[in-house]
């Protein structure tokens, strides 16, 4: 597997940093090489947060921000326009968006923002699922289900192992349910 670069656009409080860590943990436990790190602005809830995750089967020699991502995960659709989420996208990049919006409408909107360029767009209502399963809008662990479905970087089993390695026992079942629901309800154009 060649290196996959994932850029997450979230806000303080979404759990975006944790999502990057869980994905990297799942990759390491699957025998891959992974690195993940955050880039905050001011340390407060609601502020935009960027997370950069790299996964590869071989050595990784980069530590800088990801400028040309293979995958972009957008936790809050407002960041699509104002958060630089569309910066540096490549023709084959995958855009995963946390939204209640219909996929067709979302794809049209994204195509408009990218001047008609076709892109693989995935829509998932991670916040809705998180509210139901976790009782709180912590959509970042939930959206992992959609991320691994769209990219195939690791499987559900590896994510499950990462959740068990990183989160308290009391949080395992509900997070795994949320991740599975996002996995099976993510819609892709």
């Amino acid at each position, binding site marked *: 597997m060649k290196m996959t670069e994932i850029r997450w656009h979230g806000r303080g409080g979404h759990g975006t940093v944790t999502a990057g*860590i869980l994905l990297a943990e799942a990759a390491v436990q699957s025998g891959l*090489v*992974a690195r*993940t*790190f955050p880039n905050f602005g001011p340390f407060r809830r609601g502020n935009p947060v960027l997370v950069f995750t790299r996964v590869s089967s071989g050595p*990784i020699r*980069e*530590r*800088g*921000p990801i400028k040309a991502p293979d995958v972009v995960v957008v936790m809050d659709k407002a960041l699509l326009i104002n958060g630089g989420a569309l910066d540096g996208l490549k023709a084959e990049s995958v855009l995963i968006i946390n939204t209640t919006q219909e996929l067709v409408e979302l794809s049209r909107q994204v195509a408009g923002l990218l001047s008609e360029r076709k892109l693989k767009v995935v829509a998932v209502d991670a916040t809705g699922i998180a509210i139901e399963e976790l009782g709180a809008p912590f959509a970042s662990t939930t959206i992992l289900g959609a991320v691994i479905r769209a990219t195939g970087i690791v499987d559900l089993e590896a994510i499950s192992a990462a959740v068990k390695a990183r989160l308290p026992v009391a949080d395992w079942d509900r997070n795994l349910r949320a991740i599975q629901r996002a996995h099976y309800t993510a819609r892709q154009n």
Partner: protein
Amino acid sequence: MLRLLDGNAAASYGAKLARTQIVSATPITPASEIAEHLIRFIEAGELRAEFVVPEGEHSTMVICMGASMTGARVFTATASQGLAYMHEPLHFAAGGRLPIVMAVPNRSIALPWCNYPDHQIVVAQRDTGWIQLHCENAQEVLDTCIQAFRIAEDPRVLLPVMVCFDGWTVSLHHEGVDIPPQDEVDAYLPAYTSQHCVLDPDKPKTVGAGADALLYMQYRRQMEEAMDAARAVIKTTDEEFRVRFGRSYGGMLDQYRCEDAAVVLVGMGALAEAARAAADELRLEGAPVGVARIRSYRPFPHAELRALGERVEAIAVVDRSSSPGLGGPLASEVRAVLSGLPRSPQVYGFVAGLGGHEISVAHLRKALSSVSIATGPASEDQWLW
């Protein structure tokens, strides 16, 4: 056991495996998590140690000194403004020859206020008498924290050690880290028994008494000799680590493709990884370039740099700090140790990555390429933007 850890967690695992007995630290970005991890280890009973709550970084170091004088193994962590505030007792700890180990995730210094990495404030501690080891990734941080206690406690050395690594770039960067087994670490790092400076009510003594000029100068001379002795100790400690754990970091100076290089890039910290990638790219294009990462900033790798200087045509030194009115401090020190060689290479200075400004492979390629074609003596340091 391979675990996903960031540099801060790696430092705390290193301190835990070293069986640290006293920890004291004050929260400061980006070092706070190091003490937080250690407190969790202590609370969970995984580390038999005491955490002493200080009111600031100055007190932190004084607490560490007192703890070390009881014969305990002592660990702390700080960064940036905290390190600056600790500057005065840093001299006390080194002058007292107390083998304290401190993790320092490198962060810029205000003003302007900036949370991101550079070497400005850590380089400014170079004359305190602390050994400074600079790491480039989380694995090296963990391993070097263990090595640091062996170096600090060696009777030929008895100096405190800073284990420095770039804030954020390493301290908050999660990556796969192998955690060595405790029994192997115990065999590598025996328990500390203090011979030279123990506060014992049965054998009262004064520590930190006044000295006349001659005594003062004798003590300072001993520190210089201890730093000199540390050179060999740092190398053997790293080599013995490799024998037991299969990993080593180049001792004083970590050299990559330098054997037949005409041009070498010299720098410290995480930028070495990007520099090696840049060197590999240029090698494919036929340019004989290499990278020498200064792992031990104090003691400075005189002999290694001189041996390198005798072989190469030119050296590009990339500083992550600047001494206003002089230029890059690392570049000036490299020039100083190379002066007087029968055939000195040209040394070109570059200042880069201040306040976390990105240092990419492209930046370092540019530095190496420009030095490869440069002729004549270097003018003032160039800034890589």
